[in-house]
């Protein structure tokens, strides 16, 4: 088991900088998810940790030892690929056995035909068989050992790929969007299986995904990568509740967080669409973004802070989304409500507000601004009424 440290990692492909100085320390036994929109460099970073791609500058350390220039297999990390990358011509058994065979047999013993005559081969092969069978049993693959990958379902292939990774007992596991080729139902199931596997193995997991549900449900920490930077690292709850950057706020959370144009007044008060929020900030006056999660939007039938019209309704059964068009805001706002209450009609006028504790404010550059409740920290809805 290992601690993986990244220091000032930069990567340039043909004059395009993909990674712009990544610092990250992944503790022993931790499950860290790297998330970010596609093209943010998260897969490149994982491949640099694996040793499949050399970094342009910076340092990778595994358990304190610098591993730059060490071959991928010698780093003792295992990787699970998005496409599973199983050897199509080998059976499930042989697929899982490959890393052990490469490690334990001498070059001579691995030769086709002649290898069989090698004296130590049989004994080593017995040991390998035992271990492959143990791993197969653990992953419920025992019945499929003789099949070829082409005869397996997506979920089974996924488990073979995991089996091939765990059989060699690596110090850390790298996952490159391992669930994105599965259908939605199986993905939820495999999410639970992987989380359980992590608890069982207590190994270091680095998990790349663009699906924030996977990151939120499985990981102990999330690192959000945007345009080659790690913008924020924290527990899933921290990243969700306290985004330090508007891009993090917008990327994490589905549906996307609502952003309303706001203004910081000279006296430090914050206004949105001309309504004072009852918050004050030491930040400089100017434009800002006022962000509210859809589930914190409060619709009201009576008069409230902001009014708009219902553009669209989505009832998913357990929850419903109301798309609200507000004047002077380009994107419709979204409110997540419980469908057991009366849903507003499409096209009808609607009032809504939100609690001051639900508000996250970002400056024009997208950085989070700390706010304190002003003397009267009421809901702006009441303010409006009053």
């Amino acid at each position: 088991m290992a601690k993986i440290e990244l220091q000032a990692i930069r990567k340039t492909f043909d004059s395009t900088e993909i990674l712009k100085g990544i610092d990250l320390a992944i503790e022993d036994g931790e499950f860290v998810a790297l998330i970010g929109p596609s093209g943010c460099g998260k897969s490149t970073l994982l491949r640099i940790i694996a040793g499949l791609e050399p970094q342009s500058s910076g340092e990778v350390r595994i358990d304190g030892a610098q591993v730059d220039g060490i071959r991928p297999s010698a780093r003792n990390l295992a990787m699970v690929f998005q496409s599973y990358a199983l050897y199509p011509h080998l059976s499930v058994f042989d697929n899982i056995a490959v890393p052990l065979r490469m490690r334990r047999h001498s070059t001579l013993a691995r030769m086709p035909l002649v290898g069989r005559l090698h004296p130590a081969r049989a004994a080593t092969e017995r040991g390998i068989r035992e271990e492959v069978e143990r791993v197969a049993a653990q992953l419920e693959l025992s019945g499929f050992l003789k099949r070829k990958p082409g005869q397996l379902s997506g979920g089974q292939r996924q488990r073979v790929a995991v089996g091939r990774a765990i059989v060699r007992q690596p110090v850390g596991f790298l996952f490159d969007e391992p669930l994105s080729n599965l259908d939605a139902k199986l993905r939820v199931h495999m999410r639970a299986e992987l989380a359980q596997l992590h608890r069982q193995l207590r190994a270091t997991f680095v998990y790349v995904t663009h699906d924030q549900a996977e990151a939120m449900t499985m990981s102990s920490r999330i690192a959000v990568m945007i345009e080659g930077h790690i913008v924020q690292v924290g527990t899933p709850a921290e990243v969700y509740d306290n985004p330090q950057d508007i891009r993090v706020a917008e990327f994490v959370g589905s549906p996307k967080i609502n952003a309303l144009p706001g203004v910081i007044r000279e006296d430090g008060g914050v206004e949105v669409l001309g309504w004072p929020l009852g918050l004050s900030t030491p930040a400089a006056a100017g434009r800002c973004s006022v962000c509210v999660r859809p589930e914190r939007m409060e619709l009201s039938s009576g008069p409230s802070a902001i009014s708009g019209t219902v553009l669209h309704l989505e009832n998913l059964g357990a929850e419903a989304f109301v798309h609200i068009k507000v004047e002077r805001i380009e994107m419709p706002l979204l409110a997540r409500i419980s469908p057991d209450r009366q849903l507003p009609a499409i096209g009808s006028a609607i009032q809504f507000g939100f609690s001051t504790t639900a508000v996250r404010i970002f400056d024009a550059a997208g950085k989070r601004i700390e706010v304190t409740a002003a003397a009267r920290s009421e809901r702006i809805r009441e303010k409006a009424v009053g």
Partner: protein
Amino acid sequence: MTPRRHGITWSAARHLLLLAGAAFILLPFIWMVSTASKPQTEIFTTDIHFIPQNLALWENFATAFGKASLWRFLLNGVVVTVSIFALQVLIALPAAYALAKLRFAGREVLFALVLFCILIPPQATAIPVFLLFHQIGILDSYAALVVPFTISAFGIFLMRQFFKTVPDDLIEAARMDGITEFGIVWRVMLPTAIPALTAFGIFSVVAHWNDYFWPLIVLNSEHLRTPPLGVASFRNEEAGTNYGPLMAAAIVIIAPLVIAFLLAQRRFIEGITLTGIK
């Protein structure tokens, strides 16, 4: 005229046309079999008849096998085509892997050179290669027959195109598992490339089994002759051309390819389609 009747007429016309084409292409083969079945006296008659009056097929085969060492020619053909193909694979696969999957400076230039090599006809280099072989003294040997064809630009091109379609993930998984780069070529790429390799094998074996030009240039000794050269030797007998045994020998040397084609018909067509798409 109803559409149905129109369909039948068109269909009949189409088949007639195709039959005529097939007959035209098959005619030399039929004539070969026919001549091989006739005794010498019947071959030189003025009237054209396909079915011989006196069947002399076995006599002609016997003469063919007795007169020239046909078995030896066939064996030479096998040795030469198999060696050429094995060496071509040995060289083309690692080269194609490097051109398709490894990143290094000058890769595109190298690949352009490979493509350029496909354009050079073998006849253009025949004389320099002949002189070179004369200098190093390997004319009139198996080596002279095999060596010029060991590096197949077409093979490298074909395999490179196929390897391009193999996902990078598979290669990276192999690297993570500790397989070396050469190991990846033989353990991972080769098994996935069997269809492309079969196609290439068919082209290579057919081309070199039937090759007449190069063996004619470099060989003197009768015992090294490849099948087409061996058949030609019937023509040069001082007693005049003996067509019956000549045709019998021709049947013998095309038989392996025809049988192989019939057995692997589907693969062969697949192979051509494969090279057509890529």
